[in-house]
């Protein structure tokens, strides 16, 4: 039963990544593109966690935490650059 639910969740997050990619290419404003990139990072975290459940390894949470940190920092850096033309003032 877990295997079926795991496959369903993996498929859902894969389709979600494709939706984000569509918004990343189409997005009319810069804010849409940054939001799509941030959501892609979050969906990738979910995919890493689901892969950890499937493989049964306890190490994947470190990869997920690193992904969350770099995703947040890159989103804030992009937003600061768009807002002020500079990242560290």
């Amino acid at each position, binding site marked *: 039963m*877990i295997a079926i639910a795991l496959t369903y969740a993996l498929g859902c997050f894969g389709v979600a990544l494709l939706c984000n990619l569509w918004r990343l290419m189409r997005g009319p404003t810069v804010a849409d593109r940054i*939001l799509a990139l941030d959501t892609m990072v979050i969906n990738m975290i979910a995919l890493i966690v689901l892969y950890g*459940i499937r493989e049964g390894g306890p190490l994947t949470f470190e990869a997920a935490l690193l992904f969350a940190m770099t995703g947040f920092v890159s989103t804030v850096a992009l937003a600061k650059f768009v807002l002020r*033309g500079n990242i560290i003032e």
Partner: protein
Amino acid sequence: METAFEILVALLLVVAGTFGLIGSFGLVRLRDAMQRLHAPTKATTIGVGAALVASVIDLYHYRAALTWQELLVAAFLFITAPITALFLARIHMHRSIPRKALPPTGTAQDWATFDARIKDADPDI
């Protein structure tokens, strides 16, 4: 007892996948930029949160090891999601709303995104 764990983990996984898909589908479907900012917050909180809780329960069930570190990821996402949303709303205000349409701030200072005092202080920036 074994099936109870399995049902719980499977239910959490289904909830996680459904909410993740709903959040990203809303990102495609909704019309306005600020409406689109609202949609992926569900994927962040419930989607990833349910996947992490499922991972904790699954590891506890199969390895008999209670790993609380995975909740760190959820805590980090819960802390950083409002900051990201604030920055994106400021980008929307800065670039998509006309300067005259914004209400007055009520103080001597301008809106923070339009504040030009740093430019005056240092012409290089």
